[in-house]
Structure formats: structure tokens, C-alpha cells
């Protein structure tokens, strides 16, 4: 193919826009389906990303709180601490008195925490505890067993269950999301291809004239590819706008319910997501139009002389 000249590029873009406008019902349908496809993909990805950070936080803030038997004398508690520290896989082990525990709980609950104020001092229902973090998380289960075996340990809050559940939900969302996105992807390709086919059908005489005067297949093809790419571009921009709006609203609602949850900041998402959406949209548009043009050029392009 020869290098595209500037005036040709201008012609192609003008034709692309013209086609979009003449064909606006179909254009709208293509854009709408592509938007929903991108939105779902984006939602699934955002969900997964937030899950990821939430779980990392869970692992990082770590880990296990080991509650000691109630009203254990301080000296004994220190001894339990020593034993805990001697366990192979324990990295850190810090003492949290019942008062400290209450304070941090009040902090976590924010405004609602004030209800706990009456429980300070002797009324404190919380036991003393140790916060333990591990060196090697793969040995999690064994270490938990060892800790439980230590005398004076009454209970362990262990986040492995929660983490397990979160992972499972995340996987479920990822798989379901993937299938839905795949399905919608096929649907959008199909609709884009059809939109382009409608344009091509209405332009079939022009195409046959173009071919009869010696236009290259690329020249015939490109305005339609441009049309498809523009559908993708529009869908990409609108979808990212919508996604961020929805994310912003959702994040507000969720942090209202779970105050300790901090969603991934919008500012760090805007660039990669918009870029990804726009590129994916354009690729889809180009692909959709290439599918129908290939078929069209082979089937109908070659009959300028009637039999």
C-alpha cells in the first residue's frame, strides 16, 4: 500500500463521519452495545482491583489477633508472649492490652464508636491480646495450629476465612464477568459488522465505481474502517465517563457502610481505564468493520459488468 497522503486522510475521515451520520440509528445501536460491553468489563476489573487492595490490606495489617484467657495476670501474659515468639514462623508479636484494643475499636467505628465509651476501664469486655504477623504465609495453617496449642490462648481471629471468601467472590465475579464480556463482545462485533454492512450496501454502487476506476482494496476499505473505529472511539469515551461516574457514586455508598474500606482512588484509574477503553473500542470497531468489508469485497465488489 502506498503511503496515505494527507488529502486522502482528510477524505477518509470526512467519509467516515458522513457514514456515521447517515447511518445514525445503527451507529447508536453499535455504540450502546459496545458501551455496555466496556462498562461490564470495567466494572468487573474495578471490582477485582478493589478486592485485591482490600485483601492486601488485610494481609498487611496482618493477620492474627491472639486473645488470651480472660483476666490473665500480666506476668503470665508475658510468658505466653515469649512462647508465641519462640514459634518458628512468627515474625512480630506485640502485646495489645485490653484498653488499647478498645481504643482502636472505637477508632475503627468512627462516630459510632462513642457507644463503647461506657465500657472502658473495668467494664471492658475485651481480653488482652497479641498481634502476630507471620514470616511465611504459606505455612499459615500449621502456624495457627501451633499458636492454638499454647497454654493461655483462648481464641484466634483468623482472617483466612474472610480472605478465602473474598477470593472466592473475586474469582466468581471474574469468571462470570469474563463470560458476559465475551458474549457481549461477540454481540457488539456482530452489530458493528452489521452497521458497516448497511453503509456498504447503500454505497455499493460507489464501491463498484471505485473498483472499476482502479481504487485499491485498501482505499475502498478505509472509510468503513474509519467508521468502525469512530464507533469504538465514541463508545470508549462515553463508557469510561459513565464508569467513573458510577464508580464515584458506588464508592461513596460503600464507604458510608464500611468505613474501614478505602476504594482505589479515581485519579489513578482515569488514565489507564480511559486509554484501555478507547483502544479496546477502536480495535473492536476496526475488527467489526474488517469482518464485513472482507465479505463484501469478495462477494459484491466484483461485478461492475452485469451478466
Amino acid at each position: 500500500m502506498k503511503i496515505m497522503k494527507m488529502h486522502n486522510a482528510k477524505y477518509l475521515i470526512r467519509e467516515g463521519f458522513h457514514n456515521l451520520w447517515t447511518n445514525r440509528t445503527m451507529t447508536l445501536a453499535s455504540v450502546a452495545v459496545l458501551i455496555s460491553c466496556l462498562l461490564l468489563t470495567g466494572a468487573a476489573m474495578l471490582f477485582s482491583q478493589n478486592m485485591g487492595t482490600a485483601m492486601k490490606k488485610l494481609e498487611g495489617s496482618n493477620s492474627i489477633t491472639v486473645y488470651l484467657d480472660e483476666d490473665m495476670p500480666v506476668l503470665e501474659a508475658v510468658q505466653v508472649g515469649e512462647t508465641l515468639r519462640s514459634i518458628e514462623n512468627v515474625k512480630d508479636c506485640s502485646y495489645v492490652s485490653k484498653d488499647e484494643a478498645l481504643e482502636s475499636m472505637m477508632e475503627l467505628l468512627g462516630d459510632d464508636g462513642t457507644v463503647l465509651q461506657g465500657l472502658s476501664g473495668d467494664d471492658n469486655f475485651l481480653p488482652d491480646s497479641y498481634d502476630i504477623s507471620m514470616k511465611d504465609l504459606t505455612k499459615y495453617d500449621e502456624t495457627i495450629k501451633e499458636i492454638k496449642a499454647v497454654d493461655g490462648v483462648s481464641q484466634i481471629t483468623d482472617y483466612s476465612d474472610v480472605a478465602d471468601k473474598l477470593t472466592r467472590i473475586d474469582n466468581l465475579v471474574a469468571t462470570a464477568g469474563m463470560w458476559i464480556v465475551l458474549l457481549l463482545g461477540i454481540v457488539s462485533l456482530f452489530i458493528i459488522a452489521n452497521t458497516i454492512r448497511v453503509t456498504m450496501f447503500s454505497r455499493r454502487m460507489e464501491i463498484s465505481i471505485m473498483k472499476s476506476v482502479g481504487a485499491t482494496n485498501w482505499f475502498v476499505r478505509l472509510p468503513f474502517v474509519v467508521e468502525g473505529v469512530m464507533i469504538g472511539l465514541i463508545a470508549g469515551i462515553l463508557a469510561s465517563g459513565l464508569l467513573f461516574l458510577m464508580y464515584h457514586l458506588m464508592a461513596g455508598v460503600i464507604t458510608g457502610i464500611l468505613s474501614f474500606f478505602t476504594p482505589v482512588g479515581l485519579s489513578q484509574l482515569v488514565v489507564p481505564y480511559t486509554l484501555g477503553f478507547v483502544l479496546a473500542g477502536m480495535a473492536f470497531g476496526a475488527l467489526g468493520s474488517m469482518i464485513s468489508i472482507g465479505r463484501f469485497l469478495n462477494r459484491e465488489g466484483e461485478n461492475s459488468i452485469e451478466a
Partner: protein
Amino acid sequence: MSMIEFKNVSKTYGNGTKAIQNVNLQVEKGEFVFIVGSSGAGKSTFLKLLMCEESPSSGEILINNRVINNLKRKEIPYLRRTMGIVFQDFRLIERMTVYENVAFAMHVVGAAPRDIRKRVPYILGLVGLQSKAKCYPSELSGGEQQRVGLARALVNNPSLIIADEPTGNVDPALSFEIVDLLSEINHRGTTILMVTHEHNLVKHFNRRVIQIHHGEVVADTEQSKPAVAEYIGDQEGWK
């Protein structure tokens, strides 16, 4: 030098139709040739073979001394640029003016806008349509529309014009005008191949006539030889 050469060319379609059988012919540069024959005789296939829309089942086709039998798809557009095609049904784009229709053909092959602005008015002048440049095809008579078609075929300066029944949809009185124009273009050195049904035209213009019947060349007058009618005998044979 020959413009077109067919050597033992046959074309059999997938369904078994033998459209062209063992055709041998040669058209020199600068010739004006009428191609006549009843419908279904193989004229369309003949043109399709020339334009590389179909490739022959056997034999060899040369254009400008170049074998075009098995051109790659990519090369076909460049072959087409050496020929201008005039259609029976004009094939003008309704949403474009006369000027734009002609300019479109230049545009499509990547001509520079500057060249288009120079060349299109010149060609419209040649076919006598400079005053109609801003009209739309629907505002023109059949004869005028076909002149636009002719201008479009000419604008890229092809060495061969293929006219597929160019007078078929034109008022009979104006048919002569079209062929006159083709003759004038021929005088400027362009080879003309015109498929037609119209006996009157062929008789009047006294040019070489190739008659195709059942896929074979059954008569071929050389350019300077006497009137066609004597060879063809009965007029009905063409229709």
C-alpha cells in the same frame, strides 16, 4: 503494437457454462472496435476477462503486451487504471454533482487536489458539459449523463476505453453524439472497445466489428474493410 491480445482463450464457469470458447483476436493501439452479438453470446464475459474480474479457464490474455491471466489481487487496481469503463446504466453517484462525479474517479486513484482542479474542467469541456458542472445527475438528460460517464472514464487518461452498451439507455437521436465523442477520443489516440446492439450505429460509423456468437468470434472485419452489414448479413443475429 497490440493493445489487446487473446490467445486461445476459453472461459467455462463453475456451473459448466461455456461462455467463451477458443477466442483469438488482436486489437491494435489506437483502434476503434465494435463488439456485437446477441445477449448471452459472451460479450459480458469478454469484458470481464479484460477487466480482470474473471480469469480465463485456458489461454492467455495480454494487455499492453503484458499477460494478465493471473494477476495478483493487489495488481488488478493498477491494471484498471489503464482503462476507462463506460456503463450502460451510467453509474453516476446521485448525491454528487457532475464535477464531483468526475473528480471522484481521480480522487480514488490518489490524484493530488491541484491536478484534479485542473483536469476535471478540461475533461468536462471535452465532452461539452462545462456549463453543467454543478448540476446533479438527476437534472441531466440520458445523453448528458452518459457524457458524464464518459468524462469519468477519460479523466485518468486511460489508454483503453471499454464502453459496455453506452447508448443502451440514451435517446436514439443522441446515440450518435456519444459515438461521435468516442470517435473523437479515438482520434486522440485512445483505443476504444464498444459493445453494442445497435446496428445503425455500427453501420454508420464503419469501424472494425467483432461479432461474438455462442462464445466464439464468428466475424471480424478489419478496420479498413467494407461495411459491416455485408458480413453480418442478417440484422437479427445481433439481437
